């Protein structure tokens, strides 16, 4: 089906991950259980997931007709 789902997944999670990570830096919020900045750390992980999806999309593109 025309649209490769990896593109929107990649874009959405890169965006959400980046927003969370930036927010984590700007407004450091210590989580009570860990004493670490979970928004920053997990935001970076989500950004990574989004990035991997974009890479998978890039290399999985069908050759242009």
């Amino acid at each position: 089906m025309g649209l490769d789902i990896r593109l929107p997944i990649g874009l959405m999670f890169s965006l959400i991950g980046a927003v969370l990570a930036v927010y984590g830096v700007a407004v450091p919020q210590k989580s009570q259980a860990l004493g670490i900045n979970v928004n920053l750390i997990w935001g970076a992980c989500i950004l990574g997931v989004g990035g991997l999806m974009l890479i998978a999309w890039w290399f999985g593109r069908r050759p242009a007709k």
Partner: protein
Amino acid sequence: MHIQLGFIDYAILIIYFAFVLGIGFALRRFMRTSSDFFLSGRSIPAWVAGLAFLSANLGAQEVIGMGASGAKYGIATSHFYWIGAIPAMVFVGIFMMPFYYGSKARSVPEYLKLRFDEKTRGFNAITFAGMTVMSSGISMYAMGRLLEALLGWDFNVSVWVSAAIIVGYIYLGGLTSAIYNEVLQFFLIVLGFIPVVFLGLKDVGGWDGLTAKLTTVATSQHYAPGTWSQSWQHMTSSASNPMGVEIFGLAMGLGFVLSFGYWCTDFLVVQRAMAADSMSAARRTPLIAAFPKMLFPFLVIVPGMIAVALVSDPASGFSLPSDGSGGIDYNQAIPAMLQHYLPNGLLGLGLCALMASFMSGMAGNVTAFNTVWTYDIYQSYIAPKKSDAHYLWMGRAATLGGIAISVAAAYLAKQFNNIMDVLQLVFSLVNAPLFATFLLGMFWKRATGHGAFFGLLSGAIAWLIHHGLTIPAGATTWVKGGWLASTPVHIYRSEMAQSFWAAIFAFTACLAMTIAISLATKRTKTDDELTGLVYSLTSKPRDEGLPWWQKPSYLGVVVLAITLVLNLLFF
């Protein structure tokens, strides 16, 4: 309990909804035929179909309900995954998909028409269509209530806005929109819940710390110390576990009848596999879904277990709201955990995951509804032999109609407390015997249309008789059973035990009656007509060209082996 969202949380929700609608718009130009709209043109790659297969079942009620059960019953809740889903998913992929996909039927009812006859299809199509819009309405109601309680959002606004969004993306992109959003939802649930589980486990001192706290929970309710952290050891008698079930009812009722009945015959999930791009992809769809499925207990059940462990420890400062009658409202376990552990930002992501599951649960129902309505009811009985463009139009109209009925059902549920119980009753009544019909249909060429139809009716009647004669302990209304006898024939320890046994009776009655009536009636379909529909008359799918990790049989064995290991680890 009230959650205060910040602008960052709203930002994440807005990003998500923008993508959801964006996907619908991007797909719009690819919806040219009814097959594009209802079947995604059979062009979905296996991994996408697999994740959608999983998510279509993972509505928010499921997530919240599993968290609640994790708190109420502990790790034994994972039976709903490890024996209540995985074996059936392997079975449908390896043994049943060749007939569903290979027959080119466009829906499960249509398979019944090809295999049996018109009345069996009509019965299945009409009950199924009715149930899907009702379920979608119940999801909508549950979401409205939850958002009202958690965020203070107005019930009407939640219902209408969610309805509008779902209409928007399905109207534009059909089944593909729904499938793509289910994949998004899968990632949201995984990414949104991992931090809760991680932080929660860290907080209670890891698995060992959790087990120690759960020992207190178990002994304070007069169960053996390991009841909350061992899944099998306390299943020998219905008195020794809080679920109130014993091993036979669990294995036969849940593990066989209910789970095979759902995963193998429910068009809502099967439709995802039917949209796959090849026979081998369709067969791999449920198997790919099985891998994350067996790990989901750690995402949705463990938070509930952590919640109840925290409640048992006064020093934690964590509590769950009361349910209004003195008990704990376990349904708040998941939302309370999100609120407890996630700071603004990740909290938005967690709520986004919950909302996404509500919406994709509704969307899944709506896409199954519009397909069955258009192909099995409208095209078959109301307006046959119209152009394909007409049916595409009908599919879009049915999307609107289905959502309108769902909204009505949501308001009905809000009005009448009992209606959800009654609907649950009807659903189980209709679903419980179904697997017997498919089993005989696919593996016994002698099964006839009359046999199938009257077998299904007998199964439903057996279910009703069982329900009328038994009650779960503490039941107060007829909806729970016991309306046929002044003194019930049997009192179950829990509703769960009653439903497992009701399923066993319905299945057995349907199986026996279908066999008996089939033997007594003439075959109406020749061997030729049944080719591709029955096991013995269909050439086996060949997997030779595939690498080993794409062979359904290999994947199935791997899935079952890992599930076995999980069961042993948490024995």
